[in-house]
């Protein structure tokens, strides 16, 4: 177990370094962007004197490294800084955006896992037969459809033509849970691609696992089929699926901008999009930290689960 603990410690250290690298990279990229917050704020009235005044008000006339250093010092004290554009704390931005994002991610995940695994196992069980072909083809086709196209299609049919569901979550911004119907379409769109990739992965793993000697052995000794599938074969098909799941969660938390825009859900993706457009560097940086940490933690979690599932594979940092 101490091996595992040192592995986790090493990975966390590495994750911290990764996050720092991400922040530096993001800072460099935002500096490389054409225009700054002042120019973005000036918009279609780029009066040079006004831009200069805004720049001074935002402290943008200080050199880049000084601003970065100042921001980093704040971060060490747990202060993510304040927005250039509004002067509000970055932490508020993130906290506000995180709620809807988390809600969507949770709901999607809650449906993704049973559907993805269920379809995968179903297809693997009927490998080569009609059900398998059907599941495989449909998931393949859906996988190829861009989200926005699917979103537009679903809204047009289910919300506008049939009026079964509200087309957007407009105006529910703060209280999405109170309007569950508004969440159906976004979650459907979010589910579409992950379900396909997950079920394909699970199918592949299950096909191998079901054909393995240990599955045959369990069957030989009279263990019922469902039990063989779910308790003996599935754990072996799980490791790649868990990695995929981690990446899906990462994506769900760090950027589902199409869905947010299409259904007017004010999550983190929207915050990021606006911050980049406004060149609101502290907000972008704050999000980079949050996203970086999330990614590191999720990957670590996935690796630990995978390690637990495939104990043979040595722990590799």
């Amino acid at each position, binding site marked *: 177990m101490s091996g595992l603990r040192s592995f986790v410690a090493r990975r966390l250290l590495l994750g911290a370094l990764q996050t720092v690298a991400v922040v530096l990279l993001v800072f460099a990229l935002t500096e490389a962007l054409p225009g700054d917050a002042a120019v973005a704020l000036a918009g279609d009235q780029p009066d040079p004197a006004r831009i200069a005044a805004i720049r001074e008000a935002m402290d943008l006339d200080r050199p880049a490294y000084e601003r970065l250093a100042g921001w980093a010092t704040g971060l060490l004290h747990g202060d993510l800084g304040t927005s250039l554009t509004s002067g509000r704390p970055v932490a508020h931005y993130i906290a506000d955006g995180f709620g809807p994002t988390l809600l969507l991610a949770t709901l999607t995940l809650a449906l993704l896992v049973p559907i993805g695994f269920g379809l995968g196992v179903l297809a693997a069980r009927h490998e080569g037969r009609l059900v398998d072909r059907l599941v495989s083809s449909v998931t393949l086709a859906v996988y190829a459809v861009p989200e926005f196209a699917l979103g537009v299609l679903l809204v047009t049919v289910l919300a506008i033509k049939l009026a079964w569901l509200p087309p957007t979550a407009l105006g529910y911004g703060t209280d999405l849970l109170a309007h569950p119907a508004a969440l159906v379409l976004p979650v459907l769109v979010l589910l579409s691609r992950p379900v396909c990739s997950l079920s394909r992965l699970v199918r592949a793993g299950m096909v191998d696992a079901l054909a393995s000697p240990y599955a045959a*052995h369990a069957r*030989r000794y009279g263990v019922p089929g469902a039990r063989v599938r779910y*308790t003996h074969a599935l*754990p072996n098909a799980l490791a790649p699926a868990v990695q995929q799941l981690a990446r899906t969660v990462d994506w769900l938390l760090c950027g589902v901008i199409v869905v947010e825009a299409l259904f007017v859900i004010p999550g983190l993706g929207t915050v990021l999009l606006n911050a980049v457009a406004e060149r609101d560097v502290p907000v972008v940086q704050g999000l980079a930290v949050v996203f970086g940490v999330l990614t590191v933690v999720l990957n670590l979690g996935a690796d630990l689960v995978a390690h637990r599932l495939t104990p043979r594979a040595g722990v590799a940092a």
Partner: protein
Amino acid sequence: MSDVTDSVAEIRDLRVEIDGRAIVDGVRLRVLPGKVTALVGASGSGKTTTGLALLGEYPPGARVTGEVRRTAHGTVGSDGPVGYVPQHPAAVLNPARRVSALLDDIARPQVRHLPRAQRRTTARALVLRALSDAQLPDAEALLRRYPHQLSGGQQQRVVLAQALLLGARVIVADEPTTGQDALTKSRVVEQLKAVAARGIAIVLLSHDLDVVRALADEVLVMRAGRVVESGPVERLWTAPRHEWTRRLLDEQRAVPQGGADVGSGRPVLEVRDLTAVHDRRTAVLHAPRLALHAGECLAVVGRSGSGKTTLARCLAGLHRDHDGEILLDGAPLPRSLRRRGRAQLAAVQYVFQDARAAFDEHRPVLHQVARTAVRLRGAEERAATDEASATLHRLGLPEALAHRRPGELSGGELQRAALARALLAHPRVLICDEVTSGLDTVTRRGILDVLAGLVGEAEDLSLVLITHDLDTARLAHRIAVLDTGELVEQGPAQRVLTEPRHPFTVSLMETTERLEAGTRT
């Protein structure tokens, strides 16, 4: 009691066909409780197919005719459970689940009639009893482990425990001793005997005749899907009727003896104060001094995990993490293969245990063999191919096979090709790491003959044989014995084999002899 009720399983006129080719044909077999029935034969003789037929399992796409009958607790008609201990027990243990997982599932139906509250504890008790019947101590802790945390022997016993828990009246054991050293083998034999003593019928599939002799009551000799001879083990050994049986037994007995002691003069290869470590920490091998003379054959003997493979890999430059020196003609060899020059590479060659894994599956064997001459001796492509072809032929691999890819060759054929590949370097020292383990008797004999020939014919070729098998060690001029990483004894083969000094060598010798003698208690 009549014969019919007596047998717990029976096969009649079994014929299994794949794509019109019969892989088992007309096999009859009766399995009696408490008796060990052995199916003997080379690989591909149909042993495993027959054994699996008892389990009601056939290869995919097979056409099956004939009858397979299993009896549950003496009642005719209903099929009784049959246990299976495969050659590689690890393969049937689920790598992602704890040992307890399948055992619990097997026990579950047996406690179904009980009230819910008692089921769990009763099932656990059944599992524990099965484990102790399979001679697995400390069962509670064991149940929480994953298969990869168990030793090979423990894995085998866990699989056996599964069969016992199932209440199997017949257990099919497929090559349970292949690739094991003498001590392990004898333990497996004891174990199976104990199982048989419980009144369970055992069907032993093996090409290891020592083990068959030690265990079996009845023996069926198979060849190309047919049973060529059957009968009680004693009769078969003393008076084999079929020519094939005789050949099998002869291969087993005739062990070529190495030539006279040639170890004199300056050693070709010398090891000084070698300490090898794994993971930069754990020392796994310590060899203060070991020398190999020109034309000499040295056998390094030890059980699995004794460090003999590490020693070989150090010599070959495949294991870098070691201290001490390895001298070739008095000059130190670089530790890493990368640092060794062409001449040094050519001088020390290594043949791998798993020949299939050591070949590139995408290219023809001949081409791969020839590369050695091209790379290490700068030979022309053309000349190299000719030489490779000749060498392969000399080692008994026909031209036609040489042009195929590794996937289309058998294990024995590939091992010959691997030897040829190493020989094309014109090495001074050839290290053979367990090259015969995992091969059936006939094939193994062939390889050993090739090795014996090498020792004889090439004056300046020295051989290092890494083996757990004293049979193979008999080929050598000198024997070094390794136990848990320590070099415990070395000396002329004759002397070590006849009057071993170290207690470990003694016990190794004794078990081997006991197995060979087929002593039965």
